[in-house]
């Protein structure tokens, strides 16, 4: 699960959560942000074969990086 919270959202917009495993985009979630503050969450169902290195890239509506979260799925 990837939780993102935004304080002071001037107008309605959208963001993307890109779930990437070993440099391959596995899942993209578009989330809507509404003024004045907004929290959003995305999640994926993991399987045994999904072990390995992951990252979630959080981008704005124009594709700009906002944040990147790196983690590993282990046993």
């Amino acid at each position, binding site marked *: 699960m990837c939780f993102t919270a935004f304080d002071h959202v001037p107008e309605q917009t959208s963001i993307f959560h890109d779930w*990437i495993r*070993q*440099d391959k985009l596995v899942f993209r979630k578009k989330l809507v942000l509404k003024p004045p503050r907004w929290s959003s969450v995305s999640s994926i169902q993991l399987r045994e074969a999904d*072990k*390995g*290195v992951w*990252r979630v890239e959080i981008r704005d509506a124009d594709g700009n990086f906002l944040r990147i979260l*790196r983690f*590993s799925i*282990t*046993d």
Partner: protein
Amino acid sequence: MPLFLEKLLAIIRWQDVLDILLNSYILFRLYIILRGTRLFLVVVFIFVLLILQQIVSITSMILTHTVLQGIAALTAIGVLIVFRYEIRSLFQAKGIKDILWHVSTKPIVTPVEIIAGSVYQLARKRIGALIVLPGRQPVDAAIQNSVSWNGEVSREMIETIFWPDNPVHDGAAVIQGNQINRVAAILPLTERSGLPMRFGTRHRAAIGLTERSDALVLVVSEERGEVSLAHMGQVETVKDAAQLEKRLRQHTGMASDSSRRATNDRRSAAIAFGLSLLVVSSVWYSYSLGFVRSLTTVEVPIEFVKRDARLEIIESSSTSVRIQLSGSLQLINRLDPSQIKVRFDLSKAVAGRNSLTITDDDIILPPGASLKKVEPSSIDIMVDTIGQKRLPVQVDWTGTLPPGILVESVRLEPQTVEVTGGQLLLNEMDTIYTAKVPVDELQKSDEQRVALALVPASLRLAPGQGNSILITYTVRPRQLVTSP
């Protein structure tokens, strides 16, 4: 340098030279031992048969090949049966020295004095006799019903043969060299009319044989005690032993100078050895470079040449090719795979995927070998320009974290690294990972150094960049939330 000589020098070894010399000598010795015998012609026949067999084998004439094989086998058996006495006497008469290296320059001398003396002794005793001395032409076909004798010529032997009470006294004795080969031989009678009345059956037989060959026949008349000599169908009376000796010397070739004869013998032996060398070399050459061919398959690594220094081969569908070669038996047996090269010219390669078809020009083969098949016939390579990119490092954790432990923070030093590789590849890369780091033993906060996993192998760290990352991690006990 002629092409065949170039090919020859490329494959010949010292063992081959020895091989040729040894077999030439064996062939030469066979000639020396068998020359002048009936076996010689049979051996030549078998040799010709073997050559024919090779030719039909090369031309894939299966039926003829089988028939020739049968004939060769039958001939070999026939030779052993028919010529068993000749073969036995050959080995009995010759010592190991004669068989291995002795070249006799001393001819077998026909004892003309003994023959002439014996003939006049028989004439004086009025004992009839008929003696054949063959010339260059064989007389076997003209002679019938003879008895094999094989005894050395001596006065006593000749007189014994023609002694009237001897069962073999009727008929002719055949003398070859210093041997009486056959006795009681029936010679063909002449069909000429108008011969003198004094000529009996012996004279008619002597004329008959000399009409059919270049033999010289001596006739002793028992009625008149006269010695006559028949040659080329003509008969003449010989008055004394000295004249007969002279005629016999002329006929047997002994009139010529003995030193010149020895020189001729040495020359003919040298020619025979030269011919043996030529025959064996030809056979060896045909086996090595020509007629007898073989196939082989070799796995050869691919070499890429003339590559632009800015380009990098990222990926290749194959790193080696299987090459099927055809060549002479000897060449294929001795083939060194390092002599075969597969070189691709990458001067025209462009960044991205390139499909290359393997042509004959890309393959370097040893002299004498020819290409039959290449697998695969084309390869795909991915070529890329070299570029650099700074990438963030991420730890590749693996295993199972101990229960009750939580990894609170992880810090990497350095956090990013500069890597070099194909630009297309780098465009697709956003992160570089460490080698796998097990989490099973993370009991307390600590640090450890791990290597980077450079995948694919064409990826390299930029110069001056160390290939290890220091991981500093903080762990703490997991807090269990309990309900009040």
